[in-house]
């Protein structure tokens, strides 16, 4: 077993060797510009890009003609949200999203607010799930767009996308789905779910970094104002030379994900359950964040009461995980996602996110579980809060010094 062990697959995934193999020729001999229509170098690049469009679109049940290449999901999200609200500004200026969205959505929405849009940030339930009826209730005759992530990047909760899509379609409102975490991991069909725009990223599905896609529905047609002007590439929606090796890798990654999804999700889920059982079996006062059932197979987000997340990560130095605590930031505020789920602030500071993926093994899981149990015990022995709790002191009764 090699260390360090990678268990942060929500942040990024390693490149699948099969993806690299597919990309290699497009870095060397087939180096053409896909926009060069006058010679075989350009034709080869264009053909590869078109094949990749089909593969990426197929993953979500769309057509290759509906794919706009971008630099990643953040750019796709910016293009979707700004592009739609700009193009349809005569129709309305109201956008609906959720409090647990990725910063790429939340920060874009805050910018939209500064430029005159009205944004509703919906609450979620304690498992981080959005109620479709809350979406319905928030829609007004000025609403142009609803944007909801398919699966949350921190707690793995999967939203009822199909139900939300039925509502947005009924109301004639555009529906954008940030599918960066979900695509390739859970079945997601843009037609069944009535999605109008979907943001995707290659590096979350064992593809290369720096390449993403915005899927934009053609029937009924969805139009948007491009953000980057230039050569009019991507039907004017996103100018710029196509990252051909990147999109070829994305296509291959999507193709593998689609082919192996069923088998892989079962395997990853078994690993996640094994990790969870061993940790929860070895420790008391461990709490699951996110939805117990509707969640990504590779996601395990746990709060270890009385042990601060950053301190915990330092103890797990040979394991790459992440924390919803905010000890590294100046704000001292823990994850907005955990807070939106109503997780108490003290517990939110104790959360660790394990992200399992294609290349994790049982051996790694067993090692990490053992390490977590051992280190949590050690840190609890060092924690004044654990001692106080054991002594029967109600931590809420203490007047803590504000700082």
């Amino acid at each position, binding site marked *: 077993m090699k260390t360090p062990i990678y268990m942060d697959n929500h942040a990024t995934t390693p490149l699948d060797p099969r993806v690299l193999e597919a990309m290699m020729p497009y870095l060397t001999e087939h180096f053409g510009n896909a926009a060069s229509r006058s010679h075989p170098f350009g034709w080869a690049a264009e053909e590869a890009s078109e094949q990749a469009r089909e593969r990426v679109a197929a993953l979500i049940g769309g057509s290759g003609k509906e794919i706009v290449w971008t630099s990643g999901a953040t750019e796709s999200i910016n293009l979707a949200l700004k592009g739609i609200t700009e193009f349809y500004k005569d129709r309305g200026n109201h956008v609906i999203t959720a409090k647990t969205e990725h910063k790429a959505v939340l920060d874009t929405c805050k910018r939209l607010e500064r430029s005159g849009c009205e944004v509703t940030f919906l609450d979620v339930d304690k498992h981080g799930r959005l109620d479709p009826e809350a979406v319905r209730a928030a829609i007004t005759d000025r609403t142009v767009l609803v944007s909801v992530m398919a699966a949350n990047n921190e707690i793995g909760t999967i939203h009822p996308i199909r139900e939300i899509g039925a509502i947005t379609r009924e109301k004639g409102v555009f529906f954008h789905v940030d599918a960066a975490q979900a695509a390739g991991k859970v079945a997601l069909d843009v037609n069944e779910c009535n999605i109008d725009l979907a943001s995707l990223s290659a590096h979350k599905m064992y593809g290369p970094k720096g390449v993403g896609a915005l899927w934009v529905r053609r029937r009924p047609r969805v139009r948007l104002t491009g953000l980057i002007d230039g050569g009019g590439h991507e039907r004017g929606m996103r100018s710029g030379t196509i990252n051909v090796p990147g999109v070829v890798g994305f296509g291959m990654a999507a193709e593998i994900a689609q082919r192996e999804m069923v088998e892989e999700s079962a395997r990853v889920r078994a690993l996640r359950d094994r990790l969870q059982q061993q940790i929860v079996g070895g420790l008391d006062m461990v709490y699951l964040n996110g939805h117990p059932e509707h969640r990504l197979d590779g996601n395990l987000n746990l709060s270890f009461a009385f042990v601060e997340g950053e301190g915990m990560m330092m103890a797990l130095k040979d394991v790459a995980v992440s924390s919803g605590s905010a000890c590294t930031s100046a704000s001292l505020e823990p994850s907005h996602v955990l807070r939106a789920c109503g997780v108490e602030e003290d517990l939110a500071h104790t959360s660790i996110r394990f992200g399992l993926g294609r290349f994790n093994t049982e051996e790694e899981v067993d090692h990490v579980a053992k390490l977590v149990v051992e280190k949590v015990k050690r840190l609890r022995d060092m924690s*004044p809060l654990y001692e106080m709790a054991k002594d029967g002191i109600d931590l809420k009764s203490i007047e803590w010094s504000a*700082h």
Partner: protein
Amino acid sequence: MAYSDKVVDHYENPRNVGSLDKADPNVGTGLVGAPACGDVMRLQLRIGDDGVIEDAKFKTFGCGSAIASSSLVTEWVKGKSIEEAAKITNSAIAEELSLPPVKIHCSVLAEDAIKAAIADYKQKKGV
């Protein structure tokens, strides 16, 4: 963020972890921070009748820098008079541990813990 060797050393081999008897009139207890902010330090000092700190123990809920800061101050205060200990500044702690700017907060907490422990001792003694 990469931690300095000194932070790692104090984190992996924390000095003086534990508790002193809170009821002992010669023990001052300082509890600072808040669980909701992600860090709580408890520093306890046993102070001789000559005003010299004989023993120090800590327990900390927090990140590596918070644990290291509290471990370091337990070493620093031992053998010092309470007046000398009260002069330990957060900047000295931050400098010793090479804390990055975002972790200065941990050293402030450690300074506050010393002051709080001394204040508790003085209150007990009625001085």
